[in-house]
């Protein structure tokens, strides 16, 4: 996508700039994740790629071909919708065969293609069922199968796991990653969940207010955020942003800080301890430094500071990212 913009609304004065001058490059075979809070324009971007919306400005190019004026059905992409959008009056088999029939594929070929796809997503025992007779996870698999049955150039997935419970979501996330590895098809995946983005994405595009905040590998976004939005969005718990008193924010990951005695030479500044969460494999220490709430990560067996006590925070300089307090931009 090159310089793509899209606004909604009738009049020139009352409109929503859903997508604002966005340029994204997804390489062939990559799993790219578009992530951001609700209303950031990520779903609009996906719909623009699918051809369900037309851009007001900019170009969308798929496989070297400008597709701005190409209809959805001729873009050779497949989409998985948040609510699955399975045809309720058709069996699983007919759902998966619909696109092939619409494209006038021979009946014998349709049968083998549907059965192969059903096998891949593990729904071959459900082919005669109607969508309402399936569980949420099964519906999701059928939706995936329907998308992959005609081997499109790219899959577009719009929050495909958001309607499932946490356990199933974690399992299907792994299955999706595995599916992508096996098929090697380009995927564009939209989610508001940064954990999903980090675990699935070869590359991640962080969006906010219709603009690209930063694009890169999960590691690059985590270690090297470009601005305070990305610093605060990627990572759980997110990066701590502590004012240094000179118009800058010090960005420190929860695991980059150590608890030391407040009077020791290593202490860079003081903090007042709050509660500690014990998560088994780690402890999360809530505290307040320079009137800012922070969260620190400690090993499970380390002694956490007493709630209410004052302690010192130690960190190494290379671990700090500095941001301008006014613009939120990274100072390099």
């Amino acid at each position, binding site marked *: 996508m090159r310089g793509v913009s899209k606004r909604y609304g009738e009049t020139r004065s009352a409109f929503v700039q859903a997508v604002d001058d966005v340029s994204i490059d997804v390489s062939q075979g990559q799993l790219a994740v578009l992530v951001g809070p609700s209303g950031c324009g990520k779903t609009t971007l996906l719909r623009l790629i699918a051809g369900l919306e037309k851009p007001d400005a900019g170009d969308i190019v798929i496989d070297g071909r400008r597709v701005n004026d190409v209809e959805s059905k001729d873009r050779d992409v497949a989409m998985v919708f948040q609510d699955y959008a399975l045809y*309720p009056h058709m069996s699983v088999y007919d759902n998966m065969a*619909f*696109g092939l029939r619409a494209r006038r594929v021979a009946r014998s070929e349709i049968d083998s293609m549907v059965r192969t796809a059903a096998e891949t997503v593990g729904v071959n025992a459900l082919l005669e069922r109607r969508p309402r007779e399936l569980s949420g996870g099964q519906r999701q698999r059928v939706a995936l199968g329907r998308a992959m049955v005609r081997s499109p150039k790219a899959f577009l997935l719009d929050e495909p796991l958001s309607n499932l419970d946490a356990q199933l979501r974690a399992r299907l996330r792994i299955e999706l990653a595995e599916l992508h590895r096996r098929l090697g098809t380009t995927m564009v995946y939209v989610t508001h969940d940064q954990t999903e983005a980090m675990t699935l994405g070869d590359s991640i595009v962080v969006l906010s207010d219709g603009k690209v905040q930063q694009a890169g590998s999960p590691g690059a976004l985590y270690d090297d955020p470009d601005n305070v939005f990305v610093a605060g969005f990627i990572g759980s718990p997110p990066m701590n942003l502590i004012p240094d008193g000179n118009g800058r924010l010090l960005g420190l990951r929860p695991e980059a800080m150590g608890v030391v005695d407040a009077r020791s030479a290593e202490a860079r500044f003081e903090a007042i301890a709050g509660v500690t969460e014990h998560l088994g494999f780690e402890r999360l220490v809530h505290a307040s430094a320079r009137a800012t709430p922070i969260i620190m990560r400690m090993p499970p067996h380390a002694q956490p500071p007493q709630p209410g006590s004052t302690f010192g925070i130690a960190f190494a300089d290379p671990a700090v990212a500095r941001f301008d307090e006014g613009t939120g931009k990274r100072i390099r």
Partner: protein
Amino acid sequence: MSSTERRARHAGATVALVAWAALSVFPLYWMLLTAFSPQADTVAFPPHFFPRRLTLDNFAWLFSHAAIGRWFVNSLAVAASVTAGSLLINAMAGYAFAKMRFPHRELVFWMLLSLLMVPEIVMLIPLYVVVNDLWLSDTFFVLIVPFLASVWGIFLIKQFLQTLPDALLEAARIDGASEWLIFRKIVLPLAKPVLGALGTFTFVGQWNSLLWWLLFTSSAEMRNVQVGLASLRFQYATLYGPLMAGALLAAIPMIVVFFAFQRSLVRGLTIGALKG
């Protein structure tokens, strides 16, 4: 409440309901009785409430002296073509108003809706003049074409289709389906409940149509069952036997349609009831 009191109320309600049921069923019984009684018995005074002699003469008379076969064919042909044609056209229009984006969609729809406020009776005389000027009177054209689109039908289908998620149609579009294929394979099958209800209403309405046929047909072979039966009433006499025999025959398709579509009728009546 004591149990005697409760029993008394129960008995009261039963008596009232039985009386009401008898009152409703009596005209049907009278029709049945008259249809199978000889002419002399139907006009006897005091009336006979129980059959004395049963006969099929009235039916025979209908087929020998009146063109009831032709009337039935006319009624059936017109009701069936209007039902089929108007379902298709109303469904297409309702789908467009519900799911397609085009300029002034809302304005056009409200203009159509406002037509519902003009009583049909008001338009009858101007329509009569137009039909006569176009030499269309006494043709099937004037009996069928004006009913192929109805604002009410479009409205009902639009309300129903609005509840379909857009994602379904978008999924089909990405799947490579043309707009016509989407309409045929996705929209029409999912609209079955509303189509069943609307189809039943339309068929019944057409079958019972009297005024329109009375006004726009003049030749004997262009009568439908209702107009034909009305013609059995003369200024000074009414042939009650054949009239009731004909009414009995005319009720049969209605009864069949009602029982076949009972379920979709009830569903159709509640469409839009929740969404307002």
